[in-house]
C-alpha cells in the first residue's frame, strides 16, 4: 500500500492528469461564470500537457515537449483573447453569466 505513495510512477502522473481534466470538464459544464469557465479550460489544457509530457518521458521522445510548449503558447493566447472578450461583455452587460449570453445563436 505504501508503495503507491512512495514509488512515484508514470501512472501517478497520468492519474493526476485525468483528475485535472475531469475537474476541468466539470467546471466547464457546470459553472455559470465565464471567468471560471475559462479557468476550467486552462485546467484541461494543462492536464493534457501533463499527459503529453508523461508519455514523452516514457518513450524518450522530445516531440512531446515541443507539443507542450505549443499548447502553453496557444493557452496564453486563448486566455488573453478570452479574458478580453469576457471583460468587453461584462462592460456592456454588467454580468458574465454564460446562461444569459445566448444572442450568438441568431
Amino acid at each position, binding site marked *: 500500500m505504501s508503495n503507491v505513495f512512495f514509488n512515484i510512477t508514470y501512472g501517478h502522473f497520468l492519474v493526476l492528469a485525468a483528475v485535472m481534466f475531469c475537474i476541468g470538464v466539470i467546471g466547464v*459544464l457546470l459553472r455559470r461564470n465565464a471567468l471560471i*469557465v475559462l479557468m476550467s479550460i486552462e485546467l484541461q489544457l494543462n492536464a493534457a500537457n501533463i499527459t503529453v509530457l508523461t508519455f514523452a518521458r516514457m518513450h524518450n521522445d522530445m516531440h512531446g515537449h515541443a507539443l507542450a510548449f505549443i499548447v502553453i503558447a496557444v493557452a496564453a493566447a486563448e486566455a488573453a483573447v478570452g479574458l478580453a472578450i469576457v471583460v468587453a461583455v461584462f462592460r456592456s452587460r454588467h454580468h458574465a453569466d*454564460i446562461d444569459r*449570453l*445566448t444572442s*450568438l*445563436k441568431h
Partner: protein
Amino acid sequence: MKSDLIYLIPMLPLLGAAFNLILGPKLSRRVVHFVAVGSVAAAFFVALYLFVGPLWDQYQAHKHGKAHTAALYQHVYTWIEVGSLKLDLAFALDTLSGVMIMVVTFVGMLIHIYSTGYMAHDKRYAAYFGYLNLFTGAMLILVLANNLPVMFIGWEGVGLCSYLLIGFWFEKEEFAYAGRKAFIINRVGDFAFLLGMFLIWMSMSGVEGIGGAHALDFYKAATENGTWTLSHGITDSHLQPWLWNTVGDGRMALIGGILLFIGATGKSAQIPLYIWLPDAMAGPTPVSALIHAATMVTAGVYMVARMSFMYANSTGAMAVVAGVGAITALFAAIMAFAQTDLKKVLAYSTISQLGFMFTAVGVGAYSAGIFHLVTHAFFKAGLFLAAGSIIHAMSGSGDITKMGGLRAKLPRTHISFLIYCVAISGIFPLSGFFSKDEILAGAFGAHAQDWSWGLYGEFLWLVLTLAALGTAFYMFRLYFLVFGGECRADDETKAHIHESPASMTVPLLILAGFTCVLGGLGLPHIGGLPNLMHSWLEPSVSATASAWAGHPHGVTLYALMGSALVFGLAGIGLAYALYSKGPSEAVARWTSGGIGAKVHKVVYNKFYVDEFYELVILRPFRWIARSTWEFVDKFVIDTVFVTGTAVVVDVAGRIARWVQNGQVQRYMVGIVVGAALIFGFSSRGPADKFGYTQDMSVACGATPAPGACMVTLRADVGAGPSVQGAHVVWRFSDKLVMRGFEVKKTFSKAGKYKVVMEVQGGALQDAKKTRSYSRTIELKTTMGKAGGGAK
C-alpha cells in the same frame, strides 16, 4: 452564277416574317401588308427570273441531249458534318421544284393580297401576315431542298405555321383544339417520315457513288465539272442498291417508301391521317386556301414525285400509294355529300383531289399528278377564296342550308365560283378536265411488270371515276345550294349581303382566268398535241417509273375522255335535279326515313371515323395520361418530391433550432457525451477467445519427432481503449507457460491438446482478476502432403 439567287426565294418571305413578327405590331397596317405582300412578290419575281432564264436554258440543253444538266444547284453552307454523315443546306432548282415555286409564290402572292381585304379588321394583323410569310418561306424551303433533312425543315416549318394559323383565333376553344389536332396528327406522320429518312441513310450511306456522305441528297455531283444530276441518273448500276438493299426481311425501297408515304398521309390528309383537315377549316379562309388547299397539303405529292427514283424501285410501295390515294379520293368524295358547311365540303373535296394526285404519282404518272397539283392549286385556292367572299357576305356564317340565290348579289364571286366548279368537275375545256383525265388515263393503263394483280390499274380507274362522279355531284350541290333558288337566310343577314372589295375579287378573277387556260399545259396524247408538262418534268422524275403508268392511245383514250366527261356531266345533272332550287323534296323524302335516313346519318357523321379514333386511341390515351398525371405528377412529384423535400427540411430545421440554442454549456455536454459514445462504441469488450493455425509446411507425424508440428496461437481479447493494457498467458498441457497476444508453439506429434488462455487486466477491467478460457486444439498429420516432407 445565276443559281446563287436561289436562296433568295425562301429568304425573302422569311425576312418578311421576321419583320412582321418582331416589328409589325407597332407599325401601321399599311406597312405590314406592304412588307408581307412585297416580300412574297419579290420572291415570285426572283423565281420567275430563274424559271424563264437559267432553268429554261438547262431544260433546253437537256432536251437536246446535253446529258444531265437539268438542275440549278446552290450550296449555302454545310449544316451538319458528323462522321460519314454530311448534310448541306443546299437548294436544287429543277423542273419539278420550278413548277412548285411558281405555284407557291404566285398563288401565295394572290392570297396575301386577298388577305389584306379579308383580315382588314383583325386585331393581330401583323401576326397573321408574319405567320403567312413564315409559311411561304418554309414551303419554299421544302420544295427547294436538295436533301431529305432540309426538306424536313420545311416540312416541319409548314406544319408549325399550319398549327399557328388554324388556331389563329384561339380565343375560341374549338379553334384552338382544331390547331392542336392538326399538329398532333401531323406529328404521327412526321415520325414515320423521320423513320423513313433514317432507314434510307442506314441502308444507303455505305454505297459508293449513290451513298457516301450524300446518301440523302436528291441531286449529286456527277462529274468534276460541277454538274448536278438526279440521284438515279448517274449510271444504271447505281439503281441496284435501291433495288436490292434490304432492311431486315424487307427491301429498303419498299419499307422506306411506305414510311415516307405515311409521313405524306399526315401532311397531305390521306387515309388514315386525314381527319385533321376538315377541322383545320377553323382557320381564316385565306389560310385554308393557301395552306390547306393549294400548297402545304400537296407537299406529300411533291415528296413522292421528288423521291421517284426510290419509288420507281418498289412496285409494292407505289401500289400502296396509288391504292390509298384512290380509296381516299372516293371515300372523301362520299363524305362531302352530306356536309352542310361550305368550307367543310371544300375540305373533303381537297382530301379527295389529293387522293387523285397520290394515285397519279403512285402509278408513276408523275407529270399527271403534278399537273393536277398545279391546276388544283388554282381552282381550289379560288374556291376557298370565293367561299371566303361568300362567308364575308353572309355575315360570317358558312352554313349552306341558309344560303341560296346569291347569284345576283355576288356577281364576280359567282362567275369565278362557277368556273372553279366546272373545272374541278372535269368539264372540257377547263384545266381540271385535262389534269383529271390524264390521271384517269394513267391509272387505267397502269401495269407493273412484276405485279401479279392484272386488273389493279382498271380497279384504280374505276374507283377514281366514281370519285370524279361524286366530285361533280357535291361541287354542284354546293353551287346550287349557295347560288341557286331563293335565299334561305334570315332577314338581317339578307340585308347585309354585299359583294366583297376589289382586293378580294381581283385575285378570284385572276385565279379563274388561270383555271381556264392552264389546261393547255397538259394536252392529251392526241395527234401531235404537245404535253408540255410531261416533257418539262421528264428530267426531274425517274424515267423508269413511267413504265408503270399507262399511255392509252387512239380509241381507248377517246373512250376514257368521253366517259370522264359523261360522268362529270352526270354528276352535275344529278345535282341539278336534286338541288337546283334548294334542297328538293326528293332529297327530303329520301333522308327522312328508312334506309336512306340511315345512310345519310352515317355519311353525315363522316362514317364515324372521328368517333372511332376517339374510342380506340384517344380514350385509352387520355386514361393513361390522367393516371400518369394523378400518380406520377400529383403524387410522386408534387407530394413526395416537392412537399416531401419541404417537410424534411422543416423537420431538420426544427431539430437544429432546438440544438442551436446559444447555451454554450449544452454544446459542451454534447461534446463530452459524443466523446464518451465514440469511446464506448469503438470498444468491443473482452472477448477472451483464441484461434490457431497449424503450419502445414512443417513435418508433423503421428510419432514423436523433435521440432515437428508447429502451431500459431492468436488471442482475441476485444478491441478499443477499454481492453488496452491486457496481458495474455498461455498454459499448455506440458506445463509450459508462454506470454503474448500471439505465440508459436511446437508439439512433438500430431494429436489433440488442451490449451488454456488466461487474460489479466485491461483498462476497464479489474487488474487482479484473471479470466481464463480453455480449448482443445487438434494438430493434423502432414505426412504425404505437399510440403510435408516427413519420413
